[in-house]
């Protein structure tokens, strides 16, 4: 039963991934202006442009171009960069791992902070602590991560000189970007955890547990929290994707050489192979993560009808 569900869920990925690759492929073709002219630069002869069209296969029918794009993409072959002439896959690979690291650390931070804050809020419902936590969360999710990044940088790097302002790699370089990127996620998870906990706490079996004389701690942490985490799991998957996207801004603030910053840099020079490959890689990863989350959600919550 479960296996069948997993197989079906994976099969559902196929049309989505085909759609995603098609959208990314078509970017180059719906952009105003002829790609070969962009690549050739200003003042290129007709002959040069024709050569480029020939070399890149831009004269082929569209569906054929898409098929070769797809079969190359599956093998992680995205051609060569229009700007540097280097292989796209070797250009984006190191960048990708930086962005992945940033997104994973930020997700961990937001789950950790968010769950703790949400549980405290729910347990002390309507108290001053609850109100304060929820207000902070509201600010947290209303704050642009790039501005938070700038402010953190100004205080902890420029004024206090405690942490480095830019870069990525060493432990101290990681702290500020991860806080900047993870805060909004923490806020969303805190709100989610709180409302989920409150719903569970009002359920009959919690009342039964209390009536049986189970201590409050056991009620909260063994019975309530475990069940309250089920809906939170789905949010974590979405958050991870959001952080992959949001990393573009954080990377720009802290001058981190990640994939997002690469895309932004190359938009100006219209380096389409690099832009397309980067966007495709992030979107595919996001789609896979969400399927994984979906599957773990079903495993956690066996009561759900598998249809």
């Amino acid at each position, binding site marked *: 039963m479960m296996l069948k569900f997993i197989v079906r869920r994976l099969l559902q990925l196929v049309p989505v991934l085909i759609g*995603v690759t098609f959208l990314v492929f078509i970017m180059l073709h719906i952009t105003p202006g002829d790609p070969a002219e962009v690549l050739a630069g200003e003042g290129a002869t007709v002959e040069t442009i024709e050569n480029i069209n020939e070399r890149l296969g831009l004269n082929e029918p569209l569906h054929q171009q898409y098929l070769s794009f797809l079969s190359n993409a599956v093998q992680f072959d995205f051609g060569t960069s229009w700007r540097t002439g280097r292989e796209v896959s070797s250009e984006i690979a190191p960048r990708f791992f930086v962005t992945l690291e940033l997104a994973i650390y930020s997700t961990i931070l937001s789950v950790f902070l968010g769950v703790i804050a949400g549980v405290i809020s729910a347990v002390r419902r309507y108290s001053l602590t609850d109100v304060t936590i929820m207000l902070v969360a509201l600010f947290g999710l209303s*704050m642009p991560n790039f501005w938070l990044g700038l402010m953190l940088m*100004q205080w902890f790097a420029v004024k206090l000189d405690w942490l480095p302002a830019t870069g990525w790699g060493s432990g101290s370089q990681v702290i500020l970007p991860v806080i900047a990127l993870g805060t909004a996620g923490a806020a969303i998870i805190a709100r989610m955890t709180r409302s989920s906990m409150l719903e569970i706490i009002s359920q009959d079996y919690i009342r039964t547990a209390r009536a049986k004389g189970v201590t409050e701690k056991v009620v909260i942490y063994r019975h309530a929290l475990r069940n309250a985490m089920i809906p939170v799991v789905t949010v974590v998957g979405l958050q991870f994707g959001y952080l992959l996207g949001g990393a573009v801004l954080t990377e720009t603030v802290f001058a981190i050489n990640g994939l997002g910053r690469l895309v932004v840099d190359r938009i100006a020079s219209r380096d389409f192979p690099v832009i397309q490959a980067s966007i495709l890689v992030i979107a595919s990863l996001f789609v896979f993560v969400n399927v994984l989350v979906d599957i773990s959600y079903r495993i956690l919550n066996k009561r759900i009808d598998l249809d």
Partner: protein
Amino acid sequence: MAVLKQEQKINLTTKKQHPRLRSMKDFYRKLKRNKAALVGGYLILFLTIVSLIGPYFLSNGINDVDYTARLQPPSAEYWLGTDQHGRDIFSRIIYGGQITLIVGFLSVALGGIVGVAIGIASGYYGGKIDTVIMRLMDILLAFPGILLALAIVSILGPDIVNVIYAVAIYSIPSFARIARGSTLSVKKLEYIDAVRGIGAGDFRILVRHVLPNVISPLIVQATLSIATAILTASGLSFLGLGAQPPSPEWGAMLNDGRGYMHDAGHIALFPGLAIVIAVLAFNLFGDGIRDALDPKSK
């Protein structure tokens, strides 16, 4: 003619069964008691008024360059200080508010209308149309966060108008999903069958009977989407892909001033605070109306 009259009659009786009027009053009552919604609502009103009429009262223009007054801290003359070109940051933020609100409203209106139309049609017709449309929405949702907007801007070119299109397209799927879900539940109600039975066409049913019944979750979504739209649009401008200098768009101002943070921290502080206040206002209001519309709340 007879058909029309009958339909109106059914309308009247359904109104009695579904006391929309009473529930509107109920809604306002709950909304007024919700402090967060009130604060959010007044903040939105305040921001709108200030950015609409504020510019008439400003003595400093947005592009009045004064190199004798560069990087000034906040003072009586320059309330929020000046930037690296000696421009008054307060005036620029007020003008920038117009851009922010227009981009927020327009992109959500555009994305909302398209998304709702798609979602209602999808839910109402069901079958293959529904499957295809929802798969398309899944594909759009596969591009996380700001990434879809980034892709669209890289196609159309960096410009604030293109940011509106980008954010609009980016918000279509969430509207479509909500509209579809609500339509599916409304579709099952008996009175829709009754209206169809007396000869009302699909379009009429969708616009007159389905839409009003699915509107409340959409209003919540629209309000919260404006908050996201403001964040996304200012983010794109911050990346240099939206409003271009010397525009006083808040994200562009942050991008403009971030090289001067060592000497003058206020340059990066105030435009960001403006974004936070605007986003907060829509989030508060959106949360508030969601609670007020929730049948479980008292």
